[in-house]
């Protein structure tokens, strides 16, 4: 099972009269890890919803493996920030959600893989943030998606759990070789995980930069910090004075 190839050509989306994405073009090679960064409201999540087939683009074509995405993409799965575990199903039943009968053994194996074997029979609402994250990850990966879309999944976690989860995502990606698209506003996270970082600003891609650092990446390495600083400068540079400046 290899990753899906993704091609976005000329994709545009407006909400009412306000264009959110305009004429977006980029492609993702099979098995590549792409991070899309940008300020809130720049259209990152809209882009993800288009690729997942949750919403339809107003213009342009989004193709997975050369086939245009229409409706829900079968091989693509989304990991949302709010995770969306069903609170009334035990963790193990959440992992098996919608699978044909006989999923139990596989679900147990997957839970053990993400380190949740002791919580299979817990209710999702009793888990900690990181544990819920692991459960949601197990629920997605048991279906062996060829394209994983991460919609700021780690945004609400504390710093330590976040690092742990980044390592887990990287390990699972290297093992399952799916194509990954990570939406994030954390530049460090993007540089730590992605092969390529796209910067989305005002509905267009303003930066497309390859991360040529060997894995696992050391966050304190000079090259890492240098790249992060460079991208961060691009993110912050809005070309016009910011309307509000917060000083700490």
């Amino acid at each position: 099972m290899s990753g899906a190839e993704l091609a976005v050509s000329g994709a545009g989306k407006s909400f009412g009269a306000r264009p959110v994405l305009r004429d977006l073009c980029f492609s993702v090679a099979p098995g590549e890890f792409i991070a899309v960064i940008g300020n809130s409201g720049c259209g990152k999540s809209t882009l993800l919803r288009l690729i997942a087939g949750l919403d339809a683009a107003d213009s342009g074509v989004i193709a997975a493996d050369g086939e245009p995405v229409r409706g829900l993409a079968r091989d693509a799965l989304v990991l949302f920030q709010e995770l969306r575990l069903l609170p009334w199903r035990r963790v193990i039943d959440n992992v098996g959600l919608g699978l044909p009968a006989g999923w139990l053994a596989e679900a147990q194996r997957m839970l053990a893989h993400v380190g949740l074997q002791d919580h299979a029979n817990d209710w999702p609402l009793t888990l900690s943030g990181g544990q819920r994250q692991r459960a949601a990850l197990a629920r997605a990966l048991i279906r062996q998606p060829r394209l994983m879309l991460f919609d700021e999944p780690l945004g609400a976690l504390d710093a330590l759990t976040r690092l742990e989860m980044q390592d887990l995502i990287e390990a699972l990606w290297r093992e399952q070789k799916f194509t990954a698209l990570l939406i994030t506003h954390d530049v460090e996270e993007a540089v730590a995980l992605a092969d390529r970082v796209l910067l989305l600003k005002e509905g267009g891609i303003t930066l497309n930069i390859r991360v040529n650092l060997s894995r696992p990446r050391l966050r304190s390495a000079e090259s890492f910090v240098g790249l992060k600083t460079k991208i961060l400068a691009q993110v912050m540079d809005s070309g016009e004075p910011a309307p509000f400046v917060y000083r700490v």
Partner: protein
Amino acid sequence: MLPLVILWFGIGEGAKVFMIATGVFFPLYMNTFHGVRHIDPALIETGRVYGLDRQRLFWDIILPGALPAVLNGVRYGLGLMWLTLIVAETIAASSGIGYMAMNACEFLQTDVILLGILLYALLGKLVDSFVRALEARLLRWHPNYQPAGGRRES
């Protein structure tokens, strides 16, 4: 409504059943409707992403999601049911506990009246306990329905 019901159904079981059914319908309907309406659309979207068909969507997401409100409606409806039953039995019936109590009233049998009240109270408590047990069992996943002290900080 009572005179109309007596006119239509006469005095007997039919009138009682009709009164209670119409009285209980709206709290049940309103609560169920509210429960289904307030299911997080994100969860329904998740169901679609994970390929649930309409049937699975109902059993896995819509019914359990609406259940707290549905059970709330059931409890409220049961309370209303007893009230309607007592009224119906005292006025438009030829048998039943209420009829017995009203009869006793005519003959100044205080002990029978008290027995009637006691029976109603006992039955009401019994049915309410049953629904509470049902709630505790079906809503185990909900932190608000956990027994005290059983809730864990997340």
